[in-house]
């Protein structure tokens, strides 16, 4: 019989839902359950938080919730876990997972922590140019918060081969988290770009969780899915040659079909023939998709090209602040009152000498989302929120936005709706830049813990 490895998704980002992860752990009959929990700015935001709050342990703030939900099912089935919930402190995350294993009475389970993605202290020596604008990375020296390399699957493979039942890492490229188990189970070589192309392509389909099982998808009357409130996270059944069937647990809503798979295949991809990851360059243009059963799509022929000599570095920098607030109009004439409110705000920003790089006043309900491309003849809504935002160098300037919105309560337009009490209406901007580092300069390390 052909060997098939079953890999399930446990999360697609930090704020993802927990329950579908539990379903996969309990009902997915999985060999591996993989979690992706980071966005571009996650590591930088964690560094900023750590600076302000030394008691912040530095790993996924939902680690406890996720592990409590899935560990019982995973232990029972013998499902191994791969996760990037370690953020800026994989060792502490591993220790915390050991804590939950002990609570469940699971003894002797090996947990590996993968370090080495954080290179904040040497990024300026290791990199030269910013990819987005060609400027030297040294120009970021004063505002640098954090820098991390996108590691590939290799350190995870090493940890699994050394007997880890659970692997927790810092920054690892999202598809690599899902491909590492395939490399272990099928013995794929790190330079076998044909198989790694397929494996990483499948990883890309899995990394966004429900986005391939009917999430970020339904459009009533055009693309309907059953019970969209009840979506499962995907499961991929992989074969030795890298072909696979993508599916989900039964007894839930959502859908796995050619449309959901195609949308996810191109999601966040630029050139579909050259999707660069740390492990391989994936070519999606050769792929073949076939609906082989209800909620089962067979994926074959995703191909790969040799990996690049460099790894991508993400560099987070402090870049100022955004001040933001909103207030409301409704009923006949809502739009004309909103327009007068906009004029009043713009004049008052001159009075208080607001020093901003950009100011934006939107009419939510009309043009806040699509901005300048909103059709000129768009119908006037019954209700409008006036939303104002400004990007500034300092927090003092950003605060002026909310202060002038306060003024709209008694010094503004007739029939203005306001909300109180006010939360903090400013936030710090962590700008993210990219650069490349020679692959051989990065040497990840693995620490083992045991329950």
């Amino acid at each position: 019989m052909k060997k098939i490895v079953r890999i399930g998704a446990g999360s697609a980002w930090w704020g993802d839902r927990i329950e579908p992860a539990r379903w996969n752990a309990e009902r997915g009959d999985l060999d591996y359950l993989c979690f992706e929990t980071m966005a571009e700015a996650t590591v930088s935001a964690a560094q900023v938080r750590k600076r302000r709050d030394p008691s912040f342990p530095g790993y996924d703030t939902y680690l406890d919730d996720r592990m409590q939900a899935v560990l019982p099912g995973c232990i029972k089935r013998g499902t191994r876990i791969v996760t990037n919930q370690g953020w800026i402190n994989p060792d502490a995350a591993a220790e915390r997972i050991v804590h939950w294993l002990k609570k469940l009475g699971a003894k002797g389970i090996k947990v590996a922590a993968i370090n080495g993605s954080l290179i904040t202290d040497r990024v300026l020596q290791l990199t030269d140019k910013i990819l987005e604008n060609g400027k030297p990375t040294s120009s970021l020296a004063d505002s640098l918060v954090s820098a991390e390399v996108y590691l590939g699957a290799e350190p995870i493979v090493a940890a699994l081969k050394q007997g880890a039942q659970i692997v927790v890492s810092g920054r690892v490229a999202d598809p690599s988290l899902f491909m590492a188990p395939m490399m272990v189970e099928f013995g794929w070589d790190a330079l076998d770009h044909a198989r790694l192309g397929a494996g990483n392509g499948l990883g890309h389909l899995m990394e966004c969780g429900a986005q391939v099982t009917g999430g970020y998808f339904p459009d009533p009357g055009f693309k309907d899915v059953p019970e969209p409130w009840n979506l499962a996270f995907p499961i991929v059944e992989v074969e030795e040659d890298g072909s696979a069937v993508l599916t989900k647990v039964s007894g839930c809503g959502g859908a796995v079909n050619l449309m959901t798979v195609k949308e996810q295949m191109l999601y966040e991809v630029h050139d579909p023939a050259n999707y660069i990851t740390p492990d391989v360059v994936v070519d999606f243009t050769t792929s073949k998709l076939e609906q082989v059963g209800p909620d089962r799509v067979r994926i074959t022929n995703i191909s790969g090209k040799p990996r690049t000599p460099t790894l991508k570095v993400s560099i987070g920098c402090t870049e100022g602040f955004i001040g933001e607030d909103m207030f409301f109009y409704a009923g006949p004439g809502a739009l004309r009152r909103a327009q007068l409110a906009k004029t009043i705000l713009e004049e008052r920003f001159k009075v208080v000498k607001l020093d901003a790089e950009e100011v934006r006043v939107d009419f939510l309900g009309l043009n806040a989302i699509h901005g300048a491309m909103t059709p000129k003849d768009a119908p006037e809504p019954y209700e409008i929120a006036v939303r104002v935002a400004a990007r500034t160098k300092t927090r003092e300037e950003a605060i002026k936005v909310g202060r002038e919105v306060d003024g709209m309560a008694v010094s503004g337009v007739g029939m203005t709706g306001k909300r109180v009490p006010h939360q903090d209406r400013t936030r710090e901007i962590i700008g993210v830049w990219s650069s490349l580092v020679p692959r051989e300069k990065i040497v990840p390390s693995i620490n083992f813990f045991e329950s």
Partner: protein
Amino acid sequence: MKVLLQHLAHCRSGDKGNTSNISVIAYAPEFYPYLKEQLTADRFKSHYTGVVTGKVTRHDVDGLQALNFVAEGALGGGVSRSLCLDNYGKSLSAGVLSFELEIPEALRPQLRGMKEP
């Protein structure tokens, strides 16, 4: 007949830095040639006037009957810097649903989401 793109194709947008990629995927293989012929990178950029400020590149994926538009300068400086309420541009792909195409009348029965006359 003139028809809005939403009856021919579905879309999804994704973000990377200040660049948005918007995929346009034909509901039926028969629709794909019309998308390919009429939804050029230039026309796509004009449709997003005022939102997409940089270059637009179109990648054709014939095997999936899909076009992938890579729109630079579409995210207000990037997710963390953007003053747009939808700073990831997750709803940006919906904009192209209103692009108008000319297709043969014979394709009418295959169109998606058309109200019965």
